């Protein structure tokens, strides 16, 4: 990865963002109990404790998705990454984690100079987003049924769909509430996060 000494390039930015998605998705799967906690192991990254899955098949899947995502980030052709959590029994979408991605396409030009933003600052911003992801557990409705998840990628319309990918519906939640998380930027890619969840009719609903 391009170091802070020379600034952030498009390639370095794509790697940073892809890495965030890898850890972020693992965090969501852990925090929301999509996989049992004993299938996760603790690692240190971004100067914080993170949980990553030890399931080989899940890791293989995530590696493939993130690797493709990195390519698209480098091409500035990806607009969103969405993690959809669905009730296994009813197929109802219960939660939707949406990461909007803005790319400064001027970074693609060969004459574009690396951006002066330190990796440390970027990682500090990422750390606060991941802490927020953890913090959402305090108010998101309990996922009481068995759930599965899907990863959707919104790309530019003229993109050639690669092998092992297909078009999908947006899988929107019926009657949802939304909360925005913090965003972070590498100065080339900006990632804004939000979570939408099924509205519950409790006495204390907003």
């Amino acid at each position, binding site marked *: 990865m391009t170091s802070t000494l020379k600034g952030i390039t498009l390639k370095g930015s794509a790697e940073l963002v892809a890495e965030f998605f890898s850890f972020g998705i693992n965090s969501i799967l852990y925090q929301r109990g*999509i*996989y*049992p*906690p*004993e299938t996760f192991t*603790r690692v*240190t990254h971004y*100067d914080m*404790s993170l949980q990553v899955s030890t*399931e080989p*098949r*899940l890791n*293989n*899947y995530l590696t493939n*998705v993130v690797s*493709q995502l990195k390519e698209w980030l480098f091409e500035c052709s990806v*607009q969103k990454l969405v993690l959809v959590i*669905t009730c*296994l029994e009813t*197929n109802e979408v219960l939660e939707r984690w949406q990461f909007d991605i803005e790319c400064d396409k001027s970074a693609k030009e060969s004459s574009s100079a690396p951006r002066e933003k330190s990796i440390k*600052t970027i990682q500090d*911003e990422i*750390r*606060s987003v991941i802490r*927020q992801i*953890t*913090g*959402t557990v*305090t*108010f998101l*409705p309990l996922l009481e049924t*068995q*759930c*599965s998840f*899907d*990863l*959707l*990628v*919104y790309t*530019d*319309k003229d*993109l050639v769909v690669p092998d*092992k*990918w*297909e*078009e*999908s*519906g*947006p899988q929107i939640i019926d*009657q949802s*509430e*939304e*909360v925005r998380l*913090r965003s*972070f930027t590498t100065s080339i890619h900006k990632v804004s996060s939000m979570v939408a969840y099924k509205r519950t009719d*409790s*006495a*204390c*609903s*907003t």
Partner: protein
Amino acid sequence: MAEPCLVLKTTLDPEVSENQSAANSEDSRVKRRLSFPSEKEISSREEPSLTYLDLSLQCLSDDSNSPQPTDEKLSATVPNGTDVSSEQREEDKENTEIHQEEQQEEEEATSCQESASERHSNTQDRDAEVVRRAKEEGCVSVIFPGPVTQDGSYRFVSEILKCVLYQRQQLPMTYEQLVFSQKRQQQRDVEDKDVVRPRKVHSADVDYKCQQTLQELEEVLHQLEVLFSLSRVPRVLLMMGGSLVLPKELYEINMEDLLLVGGEQGLRASSCLRLLFRTLFVADLLSDSRPVRLMPTTVLALAHRDCGVDWFRPKLQFKIPTRVKNQIIALATDPNVCEKQREKADWQDYVWFQAPVTIKGFSN
């Protein structure tokens, strides 16, 4: 306006390795629907043939749930050899009724959508106000739609304390995750007790600090619970770093306007906690992209001078520091609710009590 886009997802399935997926291509379309069942699902589906059968059944049921085109609902068949004109009139009548029902359903759906978007807009406005107040006034107000129990009010304080410690980077993980992690480590230690394995000094040191912090925190939480059982506690202070006179950070949980009731009459604490933490989250009072240094956290609570608490120490001369910004989390009951039950609260006989133990925090 959103840019036109493609929505893509991978056809890979983690339940099947890449080598197998080509061989199972016929079923891959069906399997994609399920994507990633959780571990519990995996263990309950041991028979591969049953898995495929379940998948195909699921696909079928999904198809049947898809909405039917409107035209099909209006179609009606005319039986052979019957009076076509009277049949036609019956059909027309049925079709009109069906059409009217559908119009009604559409109107209801539209009004549902409108009220859902109205609700969404109201929530957005409320959220914007929460953010504004938090930024400009350093205050987050949470209004509950009814009274709560004394135990509920204790739970608010204990959960806020745990949240503050994690979000202010005094704990590397949430309290619950730390407890789980410690238990897992203890289990491993018991299982490996006959195995001689060199442990890294750093790891042993972190484990020790983790245990110490958990003990301190659990002691404070337990004693707070005892205090709440002895007295109404209208205010709690969390003072971090520095000194009692000039802490680095100061958070107040103000519950003076919270209406308390006994037994089953109060709102469920879990619902209130969700509202509380959603509001805190939106206010973004606690998160910080800058690293925060480890510092000791001291808890002070306002309670009745004669409540008989012995663990907490009375601080009769204590005054809330004014030279540091006091971030206030104000919990209150909606004033329009239970108006008659409200009594004017008198806090004259209430004094500050300080926990004798500080929570030191640790990092990896």
